[in-house]
């Protein structure tokens, strides 16, 4: 039964075609879009600092909202980028009360210690080395495709503050994501 249902799923269709079918009421077609892009959306929310359960809740809500507004998706950009923006705004709304998001004080919070030299780390691990404000700003600008100005507006923070969080975050990531898996500073030193 489950197998036959899976066979009927429109797996061969492009995102735009699936979105058009979903706009006509196709819930299975929209489910296929969720199957394809759910992980990217959930991953972004986690990289922004959301707990796994919260990220899943917000991602679900975002997809529900995306289904309601699917007629607005014209295919001008990729579908995941469109949903990611919805998810980011949902997450920020949920955390609106958290003033610590991008305050200057937040930048002084201790981030995790840098990994040992030679340890190969992925993006998720590297993001853990950023403080919450840096994670948020870098994720918005590099994960959700926000410009600095858009991020500042979404976070209700000064543009300069966002830019400095992004810069500090990038410096840390550059150090941790050295091409050969070693810290850039260590390479330079030795």
């Amino acid at each position, binding site marked *: 039964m489950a197998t036959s249902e899976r066979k009927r799923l429109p797996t061969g269709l492009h995102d735009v075609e699936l979105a058009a079918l979903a706009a006509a009421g196709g819930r299975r077609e929209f489910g296929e879009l969720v199957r394809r892009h*759910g992980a990217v959306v959930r991953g972004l929310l986690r990289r922004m600092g959301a707990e796994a359960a919260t990220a899943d809740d917000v991602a679900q809500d975002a997809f529900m909202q995306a289904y309601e507004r699917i007629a607005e998706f014209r295919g001008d950009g990729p579908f995941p980028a469109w949903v990611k923006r919805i998810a980011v705004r949902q997450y920020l709304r949920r955390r609106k009360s958290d003033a610590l998001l991008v305050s200057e004080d937040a930048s002084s919070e201790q981030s995790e210690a840098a990994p040992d030299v030679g340890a190969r780390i992925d993006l998720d691990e590297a993001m853990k080395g950023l403080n919450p404000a840096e994670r948020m700003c870098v994720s918005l600008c590099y994960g959700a495709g926000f410009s600095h100005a858009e991020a500042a507006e979404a976070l209700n923070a000064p543009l300069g503050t966002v830019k400095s969080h992004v810069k500090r975050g990038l410096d840390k990531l550059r150090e941790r994501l050295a091409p050969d898996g070693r810290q850039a500073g260590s390479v330079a030193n030795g």
Partner: protein
Amino acid sequence: MAEHEFDSRLERMFATAPACNDADAFARKVEARLDRNWRVRTLGIGSAGAVGGLIAVTQVLHSGFGFRIQQASSVSTEAVGSAFQQVLTHSEALLPSGMGVGMFLVASAIMVVVAVAAATRIFDEV
């Protein structure tokens, strides 16, 4: 230059979905919520329609509408009957010799059917 390369690399890394073993389960949860919402909406709209219809019928019955309909119907039946009688009287004079009233009615009915078909066709074309 190196900065730009790093930016591109970072964007690519962000665009790469992290491994999720429960991607299918997550999609099924969303589908279940969509189905549930759809059922609730259908039920809500159906219920609202039923309740609205019931209220409308009750209002109509309480307003003495039936009595007025009966009155209007008897008046109009008389009017239509007399008009029909007049038409028959005039048509008998117009009919060619040998053509009965029954024949005239059948011909009229066919013309009406043809007119309706033509109107439907025009409507479809438009």
